[in-house]
């Protein structure tokens, strides 16, 4: 067939399919706001589980946060955890089912505020599971309150005049902190706002799960810096731009610890 004659309809055919939502995402409409990174993050985790053929042995843990309903969307066995306690659940599961693949999916409020102790200690014990940490600098679900990761001067519904670090503390780099612990094996910070970033994040998740399968002797920790356009009160595309301009300088993307060793900064 000549190029000129090909119509879009001709191309849309099973044999030409190159990308389709993984079947490990259910058909439920995502409960997230338009443009929220949660959906993308969900999807690539499920793609990895699918591509690695781990559907039958993976157990995921949803937190309390906007992603509380992750189990409605990820088409695998899942548990919903109390706010902040996902790493404790994961410990309970992985310790009793060491051959399963276990991951938690947690927001910054969940992981770095109420769940600080569970995060630090799961990392310190070197539990052999994956933590996916969605850092959107805010409590999305409850209406945009300050998170531990809210940037200095950033407005939220509990810092309506901007975060004053003198009163409300400094934004917390939880990922750098857990990288200090000998119990973490792979620690990285990624994003999902561009195709290139999505690909990198997916690669990171794949590596994390591979590490888990091979029991490399440490926890795998993947932070994804994401937008919460509703909480930030911006359009999704503005939010992504704001994230690049403001979040990334403070939360720089890239690997922090690989194969149990801190990555040298240059």
């Amino acid at each position: 067939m000549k190029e000129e004659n090909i119509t879009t309809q001709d191309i849309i055919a099973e044999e030409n399919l190159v990308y389709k939502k993984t079947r490990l995402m259910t058909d439920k409409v995502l409960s997230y706001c338009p443009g929220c990174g949660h959906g993308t993050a969900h999807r690539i985790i499920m793609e990895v589980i699918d591509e690695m053929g781990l559907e039958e042995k993976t157990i995921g843990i949803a937190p309390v946060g906007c992603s509380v309903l992750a189990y409605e969307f990820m088409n695998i066995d899942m548990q919903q955890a109390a706010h902040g306690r996902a790493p404790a659940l994961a410990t309970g599961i992985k310790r009793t089912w060491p051959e399963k693949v276990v991951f938690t999916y947690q927001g910054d409020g969940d992981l770095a505020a109420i769940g600080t102790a569970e995060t630090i200690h799961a990392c310190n014990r070197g539990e052999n599971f994956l933590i996916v940490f969605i850092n959107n600098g805010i409590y999305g679900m409850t209406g945009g309150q300050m998170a531990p990761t809210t940037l200095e001067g950033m407005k939220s519904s509990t810092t309506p005049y901007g975060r004053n670090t003198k009163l409300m503390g400094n934004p917390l780099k939880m990922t750098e902190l857990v990288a200090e612990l000998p119990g973490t094996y792979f620690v990285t910070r990624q994003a999902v706002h561009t195709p290139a970033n999505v690909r990198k994040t997916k690669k990171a998740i794949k590596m994390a799960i591979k590490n888990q399968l091979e029991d490399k002797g440490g926890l795998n920790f993947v932070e994804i810096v994401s937008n919460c356009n509703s909480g930030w009160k911006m359009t999704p595309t503005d939010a992504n731009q704001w994230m690049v301009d403001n979040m990334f300088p403070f939360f720089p993307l890239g690997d922090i610890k690989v194969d149990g060793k801190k990555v040298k900064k240059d």
Partner: protein
Amino acid sequence: MGELKLMKGNEAIGEAAIRAGVDAYFGYPITPQSEVIEYLTSEKPEERTGMVILQAESELAAINMVYGAAGSGKKVMTSSSSPGVSLKMEGISYMAGAELPCVVLNVVRGGPGLGTIQPSQADYFQAVKGGGHGDYRMVVLAPASVQEMADFVKLGFELAFKYRNPVMMLSDGVIGQMMEKVELGEQIPRWTEEEIIRKNPWATTGKKGRERNIITSLDLDPARQEQHNHKLQKKYRQMEEEEVRFEKFECDDAEYLFVAYGSSSRIAQKAVKIAREKGHKVGLLRPITLFPYPAKEIQSMLGQLKGILSLELSAGQMVEDIKLAVEGKVPVDHYGRMGGIIFSPAEIVEVFEEKFIGG
């Protein structure tokens, strides 16, 4: 007959757990129950049965480790004492909501607050009425001997899995710390993966050959949430029908009834003897399950009774359940000691005479 040993209640629990084929114990030390985890770690259960023992970073972490493993179909337990059990209230409410089985042991000490480490029974309300949020219930077993500390582990798990609900063992510093002889059951093997999948088809064991399983206590739709609550309530009613357990002493001709559970019931039993020696027709009802409560049993005795005395190491908590059963038909009174003090049999008889016999 199994092996006869002299053990602490706390140790007997540990040994019984290993022998009952329990898969994991997650806990955080606190007096007077730290011997549970100490015994377990000393026994190398990872070698004996493959049981997992982990000292968690806190009681919160422990109960949520229990949640995770229970949600994946395992037999899991935890133990603590009063302040630590308060910290577990959110987790217990979650497990009740998500319908997860587990055994939680509370070796009660005197409160409120940090209180004292001596024995108490002042956590009755918390265990029985629900110290966590929402309408939920647990089966609450009250062991009165080291033997029962051991026996109720197995029973507890049976009930926990029968109802997919947390079971609490409400013990205290006396039963936890004392040594008595105990006969231990044979080793039961831990469930295999295949057994877990067959027995607990709801568990998150990996989506293999079935739709995905979800463990959650959330339903944002109030109508469905109400349905879920009705289902839970139905379960609790079934427990009330099927799981009431109690023991009676000298009740046949009793005109007065002592009601006491756990360590108090042992002392009350002696008090019954003394009272009978003094010519008072006293009997003892020992509730073994605090929820479901043996209310019907008490009701069935009302015809013969002139008075009921609730004996608790508290300011009076179980006495409310007695009163709810009795509905004013017979005088009900309470005598208790607090803060770690234990009453003596003679003291009980004296109080009884004062309250019911007069002068």
